[in-house]
């Protein structure tokens, strides 16, 4: 294991604090955009292996999870945000997003992509601001609509051993909308990220 893959207590606390602040900001922005109350969860910061990530997301729901991925890169830090939605909440999600088009397959796809873009953007913007960097984002891509999560994760050839994951749960009051957001940061970005953290800690 590379030395940089190990997260010390200070670094973890610092990342935790950054994530907490970012989540608070995201909740505020989202509440204004969506006219709904976002129930904030405490983000989890962890160093994980691919198998651990697979296990972490499998506990959410064995079936009917839509996963959408969005890549981000900037300031020497790159990664992918993965949003996991429960399929049952499409109608509520549409109401929340003021999405008025027909909820057929194409409509569902667009709804998922728009929601992901907003939820991911809201959190990552807050993180980037605190690290004094700016991320550019790629278009969100749907990984396996109506497909089992196990297959989703196994179908990818994973090329890394350890990585940093920030896990956040979004819940919207009065809507049947619940999703988990996993921000997976590439192994090669970790030295740069820890460098930024050192700077903040000093």
């Amino acid at each position, binding site marked *: 294991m590379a030395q940089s893959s190990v997260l010390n207590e200070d670094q973890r606390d610092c990342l935790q604090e950054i994530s907490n602040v970012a989540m608070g900001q995201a909740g505020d922005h989202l509440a204004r*955009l969506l006219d709904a109350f976002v129930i904030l969860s405490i983000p989890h910061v962890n160093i994980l292996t691919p198998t651990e990530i697979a296990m972490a997301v499998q506990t959410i729901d064995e079936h009917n999870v839509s996963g959408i991925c969005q890549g981000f890169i900037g300031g020497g830090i790159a990664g992918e945000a993965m949003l996991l939605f429960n399929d049952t909440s499409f109608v509520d999600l549409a109401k929340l997003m003021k999405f008025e088009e027909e909820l057929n397959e194409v409509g569902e796809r667009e709804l998922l992509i728009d929601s992901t873009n907003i939820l991911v953007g809201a959190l990552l913007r807050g993180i980037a601001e605190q690290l004094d960097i700016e991320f550019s984002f790629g278009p969100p891509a749907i990984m396996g609509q109506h497909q089992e999560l196990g297959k989703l994760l196994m179908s990818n050839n994973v090329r890394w051993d350890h990585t940093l994951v920030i896990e956040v749960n979004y819940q919207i009051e009065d809507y049947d909308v619940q999703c988990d957001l996993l921000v997976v940061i590439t192994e090669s970005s970790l030295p740069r990220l820890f460098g930024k953290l050192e700077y903040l800690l000093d």
Partner: protein
Amino acid sequence: MSELSNNEMMNDFRWIMDVVQNVDVGLVLLDKDYNIKLWNSFMQNHSALYAEEIIGKNLFESFPEIDEKWFNRKVESIYLLKNSAFTTWEQRPYLFKFDNYRPITGRAEFMYQNSTFIPIQDLTGEISSICLIVYDVTEQAINNLELEAANNKLEIISQTDGLTGLFNRSAWEDQLEKEFDRLQRYKEDCSLIIFDIDHFKKVNDNHGHPAGDEVIKKAAEITQKCIRKTDIAGRYGGEEYVVLLPHTNVDCAEILAERIRKKIEGLTVQYEDIMINFTVSFGVSSYHDSLKSATAWIDSADKALYESKENGRNRVSIFQHTNT
């Protein structure tokens, strides 16, 4: 500011404008009222509208193909969250409808596009306008669509029996398994017919295999004509056929089996100058709670078929489930 640095600034500005003009993606700048402020060469070339003609005009008035409500919803989050928004060809094939411009290698009717909407801040940090970046992804979209079509075709081929066009055995068994699982939950009527061409070996021995194939094909054709769209017919073995009849009780299944039997009995298959008459024997078994598996269900229909064979062939027998 000295004259020199002023000149340098003008030079820098010109380089940047050159790049903006010539980059091979569409760039459009919109103010808060959706009036067009920048229209680069890519956009000019594909829309056949010069910058002079379009700058200052409203986006929706100039391009009625853009859904204003949809566009507004996308843009709203940009102003509030200061993030980008995206649309890909899989959601909407295009933002601006540009015709395909390559008469020889162009395979699409129009340009497939991915678009990114990015916020542009003014000097005070407020978002004053929005930049649209339009990518031509026609090649990628067409390749993807063709791959999908090819995969669908392959899937159909892999499920079909080449000679008869019915489901092949494994595909039919998949359907049966699914239906069986469903029936265990919903307890509806459903029947299974299995039938077999009588003395088929003689047809092959007397007239040759091509004649035998013709007989197999004709029997499948008659079956296909007799059943409903929701019924699932398959070729189970060499001269053995199966039909799964959802929402059908045993009496109706028997009527259908009789109809196929009579049609085949009255049919003469012509192969070159040979005339062949043949008959078929049927076994019918309806779904019953006592059935433990899909295989047990086929076995029960098979037993009824065996009974038909024992009792002189060219007839329909019903499997009687005993309540235990």
